[in-house]
């Protein structure tokens, strides 16, 4: 305000300098506040989870299965890994194929349709995906709550992330690499599989890790599809519900027993630690691939 009223007296260049200093200051303030807020939120979340979880985390969590609202979380740890990895295995082939198609044949008539569908899928609430898989797989196909139904729900949720990162990764392959390959008599297929794929692999893997982190943390779509089980997996893909960590958080935190709370805290700590580790791994991967490409 002071700057505005004084402006009639200030020569234009100085006025510009004043305005620049003001916007500079504003920018600094906003980014500092944002940084502090974000930092405070992250740290306090991890603090709260770690403080409670650390008490609850004893060896039995990893060696015993859940008994009612007590026992361990072996069944849930195993189920979470099973569902997340299964979901990825289902999502990677079509997701990468769609991403490669969008990157390499983006001018095709189908490309906008595919991209639109992928965008819709990103925005779709995960509980709606769970509901859809429940109707189709659990009820209509009669699979019941099962590993396969849960993995399919997670695959649908991961699909657009894998598509997007694959597309980006393939687009980032420098044009002169493709030209060099073509000039040596490479076909389109060779260019995609033997040049772009190796060059893009680490970026694609970053996207896969992101999808893995999302899958590990998903709850809603699994409630309808995987169900819950106190037992470790017996190898059946259908007709056999599986446990998972986020269920333990969701269901046990509202139970009126100390043992149930302990399980919920331990599960929350495990999920968070897992997501943190995956994030750090993908960061390291990105840094390594950047160093490599230079």
């Amino acid at each position, binding site marked *: 305000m002071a700057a505005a009223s004084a402006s009639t007296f200030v020569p234009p260049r100085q006025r510009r300098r004043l305005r620049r200093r003001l916007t500079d200051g504003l920018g600094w303030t906003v980014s500092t506040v944002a940084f502090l807020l974000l930092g405070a939120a992250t740290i306090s979340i991890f603090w709260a989870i770690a403080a409670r979880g650390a008490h609850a985390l004893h060896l039995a969590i990893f060696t015993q299965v859940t008994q009612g609202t007590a026992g361990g979380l072996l069944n849930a740890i195993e189920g979470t890994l099973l569902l997340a990895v299964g979901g990825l295995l289902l999502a990677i082939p079509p997701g990468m194929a769609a991403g490669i198609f969008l990157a390499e044949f983006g*001018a095709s008539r189908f490309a906008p349709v595919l991209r639109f569908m992928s965008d819709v899928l990103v925005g779709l609430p995960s509980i709606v995906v769970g509901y859809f898989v429940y109707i189709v797989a659990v009820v209509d196909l009669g699979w019941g709550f099962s590993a396969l139904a849960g993995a399919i729900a997670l695959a649908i949720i991961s699909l657009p992330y894998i598509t997007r990162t694959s597309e980006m990764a393939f687009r980032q392959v420098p044009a002169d690499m493709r030209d060099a390959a*073509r*000039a040596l*008599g490479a*076909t389109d297929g060779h260019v995609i599989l033997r*040049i772009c794929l190796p060059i893009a692999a680490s970026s694609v893997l970053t996207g896969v890790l992101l999808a893995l982190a999302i899958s590990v943390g998903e709850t809603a779509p699994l409630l309808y599809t995987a169900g819950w089980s106190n037992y470790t997996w017996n190898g059946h893909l259908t007709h056999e519900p599986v446990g998972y960590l986020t269920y333990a958080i969701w269901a046990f935190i509202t139970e009126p027993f100390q043992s149930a709370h302990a399980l919920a805290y331990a599960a929350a700590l495990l999920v968070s630690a897992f997501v943190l580790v995956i994030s750090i791994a993908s960061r390291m991967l990105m840094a390594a691939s950047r160093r490599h490409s230079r």
Partner: protein
Amino acid sequence: MPDLDFRAAVTRARPAAQPAAEPAEAVATREVNFYYGSRQVLFDITLTAPEREILALIGPSGCGKSTFLRTLNRMNDTIPNTRLTGVVRVEGEDIYAPGADPIALRRRVGLIFQRSNPFPFSIRDNVAYGLKVNGLAKRKADRDAAVERSLQLAGLWDEVKDRLDTPAHALSGGQQQRLCIARALAIEPRILLMDEPASALDPIATSRIEELALELKTRYTIIIVTHNLQQAARISDRTAFFLSGRLVETAPTQQLFTNPGRKETEDYLTGRFG
């Protein structure tokens, strides 16, 4: 007896007389026009590159040298909305005839780019890439032999033989460009196209590339685009001068540089424009 002597003399004379005859054409174009979309950038280019000679293409920036070079291995096909009319023959074969295979053509006509572009693989895998995609030298021993031979030809073997499995990007700029030449030579092309292969290199690396081109001339036909007139004068047998998408003149290098037939050529060579 004198009769026999005479015949022997004729037989002896025959090989010596051959170079005087018209050398075979490696590449010949007739009235080539080329368009990016609706914009025409090459006009009626009729040009011949004799076998085992170095043909230099010179001319101001944007006159169409690279575009012309890329019509010779159909690399322009990879750019959407381009069109070519006219005839391009490579070793007598019309490469734009319906049914002609651009992939097979590119095996015979190698291309070296202005900026070296090794793949982010090991030195060995770079040189072996063309062999792999073309299904050549499938046995490892054959492939290793081809890698060594190509690196030898490119004058790089002694510098890299102890580190074939290290990343190509660790090489110097000049070494990377020679690696790209080795990579192109591995699939035994007949013709080598070079688009300003030394423009990003220092004088020493440049002279290595020039020596290499002169050595390779004994086996390959080379067509080289260059901005460096001294370079064209040093290494080429014939020079073609392009201006605004047209071929102004083509002549033996010596003749073109000392006694150009056209005024535009003389203006360009004396630096009056361009």
